[in-house]
């Protein structure tokens, strides 16, 4: 389990970017974090695998603190982090070299590295461009490679920090499907600005000014339209529509399902 226990973090020692954050992520769980710009979302991603260390509280991996040097090292391979811009994550000149980078850091033998690269590239459908420089790939393909370069390390938890924000709707959908697939046996911490990408979550955490202001299921979070707008977080179109129709008395029940909203409208 990956656990944040009363974590507070400040970059300069004065302004606390995160204040008393507590939550946990189990393997197989999908937890989303939403919040406005500057709410501390990306800092959580960096704390999750020990890139940053909290000044107060602790981040625990299977019960051990990431402040311990050995656990911190282990966390780099057990908790994968994928950032927003894939161009700034590529280390290798070719896709193959980039996939090998983390495995070389693990100190694995060349043959094992090769078999792991083949396995992940086949799984994610990137085998055809293994010998390409990443700069020649499309946005969606680049993000797939960034994903593969982390998944090849076989982490138990993967943190996605606004990975779809630079992608078009088709590529966003493709990446989301891949994420849902890998979620089967891994814990996913999904940080995003897009509410529609969080509807698959087991839980959604809403951040505002460094505080967790609410945690709940997608229905619990998005049904409180006024609350989300008060913390400057965009809501699902269905939620806004449903609330307005409910206020006008055109439907009887709040719903996040468009078909259900239409059915209710037709019945009235």
């Amino acid at each position: 389990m990956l656990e944040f226990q009363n974590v507070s973090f400040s970059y300069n020692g004065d302004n606390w970017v995160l204040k008393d954050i507590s939550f946990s992520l189990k393997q197989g769980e999908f937890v989303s974090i939403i919040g406005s710009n500057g709410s501390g979302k990306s800092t959580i991603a960096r704390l999750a695998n020990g890139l940053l260390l909290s000044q107060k509280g602790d981040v625990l991996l299977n019960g051990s603190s990431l402040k311990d040097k050995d656990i911190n090292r282990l966390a780099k391979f057990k908790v994968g982090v994928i950032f927003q811009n894939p161009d700034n994550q590529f280390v290798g000149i070719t896709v193959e070299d980039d996939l090998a980078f983390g495995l070389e850091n693990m100190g694995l033998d060349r043959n094992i590295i090769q078999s792991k690269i083949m396995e992940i590239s086949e799984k994610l459908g990137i085998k055809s461009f293994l010998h390409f420089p990443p700069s020649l790939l499309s946005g969606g393909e680049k993000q797939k490679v960034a994903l593969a370069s982390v998944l090849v390390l076989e982490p138990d938890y993967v943190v996605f920090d606004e990975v779809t924000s630079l992608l078009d709707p088709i590529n966003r959908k493709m990446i989301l499907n891949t994420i849902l697939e890998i979620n089967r046996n891994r814990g996913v911490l999904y940080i995003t600005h897009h509410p529609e990408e969080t509807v698959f979550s087991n839980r959604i955490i809403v951040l505002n000014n460094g505080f967790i202001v609410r945690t709940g299921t997608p229905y619990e979070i998005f049904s409180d339209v006024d609350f989300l707008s008060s913390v400057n977080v965009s809501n699902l179109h269905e939620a806004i529509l449903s609330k307005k129709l409910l206020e006008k008395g055109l439907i009887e029940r709040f719903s996040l399902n468009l078909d259900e909203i239409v059915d209710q409208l037709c019945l009235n």
Partner: protein
Amino acid sequence: MAKFYFGQFQYTQTFFHKLNPTLKIVLIFYLVILLFFLKTIEAYFFFLVFGVFLIILSKLSFKSVVSSFKPIIFLLLFTLFFQLFFTPGTIVLDLKVLKITKEGLSLSIYIAIRLIILTILTFLLTSTTTTTDLALGFRNVILPFKIFKFPVEELSLMISISLQFVPILFEEADRIMKAQMARGADFESGNLFVRARSFLPVILPLILNAFNRADQLAMAMESRGFILGMKRTSYRVSKFGKNEALAIIFVLIFTLVLFVLEGIYA
């Protein structure tokens, strides 16, 4: 047809392309040193013919060869001018202000051929070797320095990352330029000084973005378990086979012929 930039890798499967990158770097380096030991014009010409032969053997496009000389034309003319007119010796042509000497004429021919051969050799190396192989080759070349605690792995990783960032920075510069042009920036009018100054709004954001990228890349590297100075394995390995042995023999024979020519014409 796409524009070639100097030393751009050209994908064809020739003997030279398939050669072990480490050996290729060592042999090119050896040929460069050898070039500086030559004294006779005949040996220089033979070396030039050898360089052209290697280009033909590597099936490199003629257009790319021509464009590879563009960046050195100014340097070549500048060097020739100074050697030709400012080398003291026996005057062969007196233009009153400037005098051409026999020694100057001979020295400028030597330097011109030397520069052309150097360009051909560098062009050959980069046009027939992928950036991955170049980085790997360079790593292997400096590997022996590891015993002196020289940071071989770090340096080769740094080179490989820099090479990978080159197209990204070019793209970014182009993007910034277009954005500035859309807001009325003019990069083509005025004298050299004015034009150079007009590039400031491109260079500054480019540098700032490069720092930002470097910071994010460092974080991405660390998040995949990279620690500076830590022992890590290497996925890429260099192979040494029949082709490599042939290349060594070929270069040795070439050296022998050069020395014979030097002996005859010295």
